[in-house]
């Protein structure tokens, strides 16, 4: 009895392999698989964004496998939780890499990405940044094995500078988180506003973890003639401010958010973000053939369009795939060498990985939160060509 089952089983396998062989699936079995180590925040303050990033990566892997793999290789994804801290990020990334999942991707904040990037050579790994925006990752802290496929702060700022020329509001209030990023953002805005002949009569810097923004909102309302607000807050503070700004009727002014109109913020605040403007890293509206295919496939699976983080993560995974295809290898050193300076077709259209600092050069987008199919979500209103992307500032020295 046992023998007959074995024989039957073997026959089935033989038949199955025979049937699949013309589709090229045998190659996917033969070649070394493409092993992605997805390190992002499953717990901690960045968990919501981490969830989106991981979903985007998984989707890219599943899609690639359905099409017979990448360069004839199966794509495998191993996930690890960086607990929203740089220490844990470094630790789990090393574990992933040493276990062979050495094509790393996925952390949310710049601090974690930077922690992961320190020892890539020693771990025999490569890392793709898909959500961290800090300029230093492609500036003084750049690494030959780290690539960024999303927009940097400098790119967002260049786009805002261009867009602000068409903004008619004259007097702005600035509310920014009281740490390096918020302060930098406020300083940038004040400089731009001044050069465009606008004034910034109120600048407020609530400490991180502010729960009740009423005292700050009262100051903005109290300032005469303020008709616009530049918001550079993060995470929960941003959510609390947005909700309370609506309660106090501040939303009648033009609100411009720096990295503010993200999906999780919109979801958490309901219609309070409606009409808020901001930079958008990825949107389903991007009009390219590759993006239309991606959005359609995503909609078929999740019954909704992909979010900014999901799209950015998908795009990052595609960069790894392109590198592997070009290199014909999954060895991180080979893939990194292939990616450097590579031009390829992406969901953003034709993009190129700048050789000087490993920053993907891609178009920029600005938009506002609108209600689409009954749900508020960020919608791209304007696209800026890659000509607007600022040149590397020279602080990145890649070996």
């Amino acid at each position, binding site marked *: 009895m046992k023998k007959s089952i074995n024989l039957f089983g073997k026959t089935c396998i033989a038949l199955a392999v025979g049937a699949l062989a013309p589709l090229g699936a045998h190659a996917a079995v033969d070649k070394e698989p493409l092993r992605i180590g997805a390190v992002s925040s499953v717990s901690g303050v960045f*968990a919501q964004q981490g969830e989106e990033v991981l979903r985007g990566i998984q989707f890219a892997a599943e899609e690639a496998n359905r099409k017979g793999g990448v360069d004839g290789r199966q794509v495998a994804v191993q996930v690890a939780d960086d607990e929203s801290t740089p220490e844990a990020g470094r630790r789990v990334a090393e574990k992933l890499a040493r276990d062979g999942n050495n094509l790393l991707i996925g952390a949310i904040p710049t601090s974690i990405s930077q922690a992961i990037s320190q020892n890539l050579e020693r771990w025999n790994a490569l890392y793709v940044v898909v959500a961290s925006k800090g300029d230093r990752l492609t500036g003084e802290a750049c690494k030959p094995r780290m690539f960024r496929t999303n927009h940097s702060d400098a790119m967002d700022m260049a786009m805002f500078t261009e867009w602000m020329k068409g903004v008619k509001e004259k007097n702005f209030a600035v509310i920014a988180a009281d740490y390096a990023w918020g302060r930098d953002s406020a300083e940038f805005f004040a400089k731009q506003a001044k050069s465009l002949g606008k004034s910034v009569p109120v600048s407020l810097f609530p*400490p991180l973890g502010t729960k*009740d923004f*009423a005292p700050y909102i009262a100051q903005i309302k*109290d300032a005469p003639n303020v008709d616009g607000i530049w918001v550079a807050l993060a995470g*929960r503070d941003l*959510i*609390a401010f947005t909700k309370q700004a609506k309660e106090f*009727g501040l939303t009648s002014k033009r609100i411009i958010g720096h990295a503010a109109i993200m999906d999780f*913020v919109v979801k958490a605040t309901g219609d309070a973000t409606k009409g808020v403007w901001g930079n958008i890293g990825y949107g389903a509206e991007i009009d390219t053939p590759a993006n239309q295919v991606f959005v359609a496939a995503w909609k078929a699976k999740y019954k909704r369009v992909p979010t900014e983080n999901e799209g950015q993560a998908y795009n990052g995974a595609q960069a790894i795939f392109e590198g592997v295809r070009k290199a014909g290898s999954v060895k991180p050193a080979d893939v990194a060498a292939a990616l450097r300076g590579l031009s390829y077709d992406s969901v953003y259209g034709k993009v190129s990985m700048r050789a000087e600092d490993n920053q993907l050069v891609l178009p920029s987008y600005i938009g506002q939160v609108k209600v689409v199919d009954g749900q508020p979500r960020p919608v791209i209103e304007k696209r800026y060509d890659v000509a607007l992307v600022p040149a590397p500032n020279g602080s990145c020295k890649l070996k």
Partner: protein
Amino acid sequence: MLSINIFNGLVYGALLVVMSSGLALIYGLRRVVNFAHGSLYMLGAYLGYTVASHTNFWVAQVAVPLLMGLLGLALDRFAFRPLQDRDPLTVILVTFGLLLVLEDLVQTVWGKSNLSVPAPDLLSASVDLFGMSVPAYRIAVIFFGLVVAGALTLWLRYSKMGLFVRAASTEPTITSMQGVNVDRLSGLVVAVGTALAGLAGIIAAPFLSLSPSMSSDVIIDSFVVVVTGGLGSLSGAFAAALLLGQVQAVGAVYLPEFATVLPYVLMMAVLLWRPAGFAGNRV
């Protein structure tokens, strides 16, 4: 401008009144430094979210404290009472463990997303106050704080049970020798304290945002209130809560650079002046 700042301070102060009175009550009777109080507040907010989305805000405001009260009874029966003769440090560790369990529970049940509870229709409008339109809900928050403070004061001052609570807080042994069942009384007080944490959660839900890390936001402020007011003292906690609300709101406007440290400066100053807090050990 100053009057609107004082108003804003009152709103947050009122929330702290509800929050910290529970903490003070539990400490007063059980001598438990309840680190899980913040997570109970969070649990209350999330329960409120679920109840409010199926019924409405007002049902949630009644149902959540009741549910949380039951949880408080269980908490006293199965955690605080068995541990009452142990080293206080053990109890602190247990409440800290409870905090971690509750945070994980909330993440498992409700997910990691930030959620929001809309203000009830009755209070969703804006009201003109001191020349500025403020959300009516914020006025209601002050009202809720006053009601809680008033009800607790009346209960402790004028009811028999309140007399027992005051007695047991100062002299538990003698009180039980007089025939008062201190264990049962403690169960009741922990239930009330937990219910108040839950009530604070549902009050906060429409104007602060719900997230699994919301507990740490208020628990530190609540401890500052309770220590400043005098550990275990309810009237001290009321005064300290209102003062802290003012310090935060007015400080954010006039001393923005020092806004984060002001509550601790206040606490230090009060403790230097009166080491046992405003009210000392009196309930």
